[in-house]
Structures are given as structure tokens and as C-alpha cells.
């Protein structure tokens, strides 16, 4: 028995003492548990009051330790609004010792019906939390939050870099969360995916996030989705964002939402292959871009580039260009880019891009994705929004090498 328990067991022999203690405890229990569960649900007093049909001041009174004038009907309404039941029970004084000894906030919280392990068996097995090191520390933060379906703000804090283990600043926030779960903990990964899906859908994706941590949050939400790879849970959320971002991009908005993580998230979370046709269509140059009716978008919407002519090879990253060429039917065929390559690896055996001529290269910054290196047909000068001389030279050299070696060789 704890020190508190020993002391209480002695003092409780006095009837007046134990009854007064129990009376005070009931008041503390109601006020503190109501506060804990309301905050667990992410509700304000005003929001809970509206759900119950009372005033904010009414909830505030219930949450005051020492109030004592509860009404069962009101408490029941509050309990139901919080997706809990109200329990009134006659108990022994002995049971009060354990309850008073475990009065920490975490013990007062209650899951919703959806988080109730009785109805969701996957929640019953609780893995160990005693793993050492910084990953173990992250695990001790993450798992209770998952079990309790904690507030989404907590996830946002982590993904903005707050409250992560002190070691390893170079580790991206999303990686901390991924590392905290073991690969075989499928149920926990699904729980995280569910929370992430809610967080993604709770954001407004049609407005630009302000710079700094908010922008990092956007990036890391998507990176986490990419890493979790839970199509059945995240597919709809990612697709919603993908559509929204594609729309905004085609409207010509400059938009700092990163394209790479979004496409990555979409690639690895496609529930029914819906992206497959969309992407392959785009990659094969059949999708027209409104701003450049004479050109075809040769890459992914959200990943590639406006105003690129139809005979562009794709996204180039350094020397990769030299490795991917081959001739087919008198035409150069190749897949060049890291972005394309990643998507392409998902669809082995798909048709390859057809390329007529590559003579030069440059750097595109369409204001949407990170600046991307591309190759394009010189016969359509000025098609690209911006070209950096330095990048041009670098890629130009790579292209020349490619031309000298394989390209000319193949052409001959």
C-alpha cells in the first residue's frame, strides 16, 4: 500500500473524517474528470455547453472543485456529449483509497466509444513502453496519445518539431513518429494513420500556409503519410489534398506546399489504383495544361512543370540522365528523374516516355514544388518560367556527355 494509502487507512477509522474526505473527493473527481475528458476531446467549455444545451458558465460551475450542487440530469447530458456514460454507485470506503491514490490526470481520462478496447480488440494489447533511448522516449509519448485518441494539436506539435526527444536534431519529425512504432505493430500504425488522416482533413489546403513551422507542419504531415503507407486509411485524405493542390496549381497560384511529399504520400496511399491512370496519363504527355495549350504536361500534376513541350524527357537529376537512355523505334526513350523514377518503380512494365530530341536543360521553379531540373526541346525557347545559368551549364554538360556517349551512339 502506498504512503497515502497507509495514512488514509488509519484516518478513515474516524467516521467524520472518512465521510468528509469522501465528500470532498466526489467534488474533486467530478470537476477534474470533467475537465480532463473535455480537454481530451479537444472541446472548449463553450462547445461542450452548446452540445449539452446549456451555458458556458454552467460547464464552468461543474468544473469547479467544491461546487457540490450537481444535477444528475445535467451530468448525464454532459457524459453523453463526451461519448461516455454516467456511473452512480455505492462503494466501500476502502475503494476510495485506491481511487484517491490514482488521481493523476491520465487516470481520469476516458476514451470515446471508438477508442474503447472492449469494442475494438486491436486496442487491447498494449505493447511495452520500456524501450530505452530517444526512440523509447518518443514511444512513451506517442503510444499513450494513440490509445487515448489524444488531441490533434499534439500531433501538430510533434510535426513542427516541438517536444521531440532531445537527441538527433537531424532526424525529421515524421521519422521520429515512424521510428517509435515497430514494423509489426500494424494496429498502432493504423491508429496513427487514422489520426493523421483526421489532421490532414482538418487543414485548409486551399490557402497557403505561412512560412516557418506551419509550412514544416504541412510538409511533415505529408511525409508521415508517405512513410506510413496505409492506403485504406489515408487514401481518401491524401487524394482530397492532391486534388485540391492540383487545382490550385493549375490556377497558377504560387504555392509553397511541397509537391514531393504530396506525390509521395499519394503514391504510397492509393487505395484503388485511382492515381495510376491519372499519373500514367500525365507522364505519357496526354494531359493538357490550361496555361500552355500547345504543350503537354509530361510529369505528374503537382510534380512537374507547366509549359513543357511534348517531347520533353522528364525530370532530370544530375547524371541520371546518362543512365536511362535507350532507342526504340528510332526514338530516344528514357525515364530520367528521381521523381519519375520513384513513381515508375511502382508500375514496373509500364510504357516509357517517348523523347524525340534533348539538346539542353535547365531548372524550373514553378513556385509549387522544389525547383526541379528538367530537360526540354530547344525548339521551344522560353517555355520554362526560369532558367538558372549555373544549373543550365551543369546540366548542359551532363547532357553533352549523354549525347557523346549513348545518345549519338544509339542514334548512329
Amino acid at each position, binding site marked *: 500500500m502506498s504512503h497515502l494509502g497507509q495514512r488514509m487507512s*488509519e*484516518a478513515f477509522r474516524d467516521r*467524520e*473524517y472518512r465521510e*468528509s474526505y469522501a465528500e470532498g473527493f466526489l467534488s474533486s473527481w467530478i470537476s477534474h474528470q470533467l*475537465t480532463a475528458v473535455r480537454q481530451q476531446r479537444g472541446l472548449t467549455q463553450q462547445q461542450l455547453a452548446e452540445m449539452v444545451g446549456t451555458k458556458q458558465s454552467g460547464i464552468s460551475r461543474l468544473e469547479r472543485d*467544491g461546487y457540490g450542487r450537481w444535477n444528475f440530469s445535467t451530468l448525464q447530458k454532459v457524459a453523453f456529449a463526451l461519448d461516455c456514460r454516467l456511473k452512480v454507485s455505492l462503494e466501500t470506503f476502502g475503494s476510495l483509497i485506491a481511487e484517491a491514490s490514482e488521481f*493523476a490526470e491520465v487516470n481520469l481520462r476516458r476514451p470515446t466509444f471508438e477508442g474503447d478496447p472492449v469494442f475494438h480488440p486491436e486496442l487491447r494489447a498494449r505493447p511495452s513502453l520500456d524501450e530505452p533511448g530517444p526512440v523509447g522516449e518518443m514511444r512513451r509519448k506517442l503510444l499513450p496519445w494513440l490509445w487515448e485518441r489524444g488531441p490533434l494539436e499534439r500531433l501538430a506539435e510533434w510535426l513542427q518539431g516541438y517536444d521531440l526527444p532531445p537527441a538527433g536534431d537531424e532526424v525529421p519529425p515524421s521519422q521520429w513518429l515512424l521510428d517509435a512504432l515497430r514494423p509489426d505493430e500494424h494496429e498502432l500504425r493504423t491508429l496513427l494513420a487514422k489520426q493523421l488522416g483526421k489532421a490532414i482533413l482538418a487543414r485548409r489546403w486551399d490557402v497557403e500556409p505561412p512560412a516557418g513551422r506551419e509550412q514544416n507542419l504541412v510538409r511533415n504531415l505529408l511525409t508521415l503519410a508517405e512513410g506510413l503507407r496505409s492506403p485504406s486509411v489515408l487514401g481518401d485524405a491524401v487524394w482530397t489534398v492532391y486534388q485540391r493542390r492540383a487545382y490550385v496549381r493549375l490556377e497558377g497560384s504560387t504555392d509553397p506546399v511541397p509537391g514531393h511529399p504530396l506525390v509521395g504520400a499519394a503514391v504510397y496511399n492509393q487505395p484503388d489504383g485511382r492515381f495510376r491512370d491519372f499519373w500514367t496519363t500525365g507522364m505519357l504527355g496526354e494531359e493538357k495544361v490550361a496555361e500552355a495549350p500547345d504543350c503537354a504536361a509530361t510529369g505528374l500534376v503537382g510534380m512537374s512543370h507547366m509549359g513543357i513541350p511534348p517531347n520533353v524527357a522528364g525530370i532530370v537529376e544530375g547524371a541520371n540522365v546518362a543512365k536511362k537512355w535507350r532507342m526504340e523505334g528510332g526514338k530516344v526513350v528514357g525515364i530520367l528523374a528521381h521523381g519519375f523514377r520513384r513513381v515508375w518503380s511502382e508500375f514496373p512494365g509500364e510504357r516509357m516516355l517517348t523523347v524525340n530530341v534533348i539538346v539542353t536543360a535547365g531548372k524550373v521553379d514553378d513556385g509549387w514544388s522544389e525547383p526541379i531540373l528538367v530537360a526540354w526541346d530547344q525548339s521551344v525557347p522560353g517555355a520554362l518560367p526560369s532558367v538558372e545559368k549555373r544549373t543550365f551549364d551543369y546540366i548542359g554538360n551532363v547532357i553533352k556527355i549523354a549525347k557523346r556517349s549513348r545518345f549519338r551512339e544509339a542514334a548512329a
Partner: protein
Amino acid sequence: MASMPLWTFVSESGRDVLKEWARKVRLPTWARARLDQKLDVVSQQPFETLIHTRLLAGPIAKQRHIYKLRVDGATAVRVMLCRGPLLGESGHTLLEGALERDRRLTPPDAPERAARNREKVISDPAHRRKPYEPFGTADE
């Protein structure tokens, strides 16, 4: 139980001032029980929650480190306390007891006394405070 430390101020002669006060005002058993119960809550709940649920009020005007633990009943019992008070320390230190009627404290200078006691704890924490012991039933 994950609890935060709870200390109580001791006089120069090493006497628990809260216990002395309780004896002096003849604090009834029900009030002792309530005080013990609320202090059990104080030791287990985060400070922000204690303020939110109005178990603690304050900081008291002019005494920016002193908070008031409220125990209502036939007699309103108040305990002046502070967080810490040592730098970086969690938990609370009980500094002075008082009764309240019609918003008037007895003794009326309880907050000022508490503030002075807090300074004494800071200057000599090893001798001017000890771990809190419940009031219990016995009037020692």
C-alpha cells in the same frame, strides 16, 4: 501514484506552522479531512488544472507568488502556498493557514506572512520546510 512533492513551512524552532495554526483555531475533523483530500489532489494534478478548477486561487494581489487553496464548508478554510519555491523545482510549499469569512481572512495579513515565509524557505530550504504530513484526525 505519480505525485509532486508537497512541503510545509517550519518555524525557526522547527515547528510545523500549519499544524500549529490548525491546533490554534481548533480546526474540526471535517475540515482536516477536506484539507487532506484537497492537498492530495494538489500533489497529483497539474498546476494549470488546479487553477482551472479553482481549487487554487491567485496569485493573490500584491503577492505574486502566493496562491490560496480553497476548502469551502461551514467554515471557509484557506491555505496560502507557493509553487516550488526553489528554482526549477516542481511541487508546492504550504506557507500559512487562514480562515475566511465575508472575503476577509483571519489573520488578515496571511498573504504577507506567507510571502515572508516563502523568502525564508528560499534562503534556507534545508531547515525551513519539511515534507507535508496530513492533518489527520488527532489534534496533536
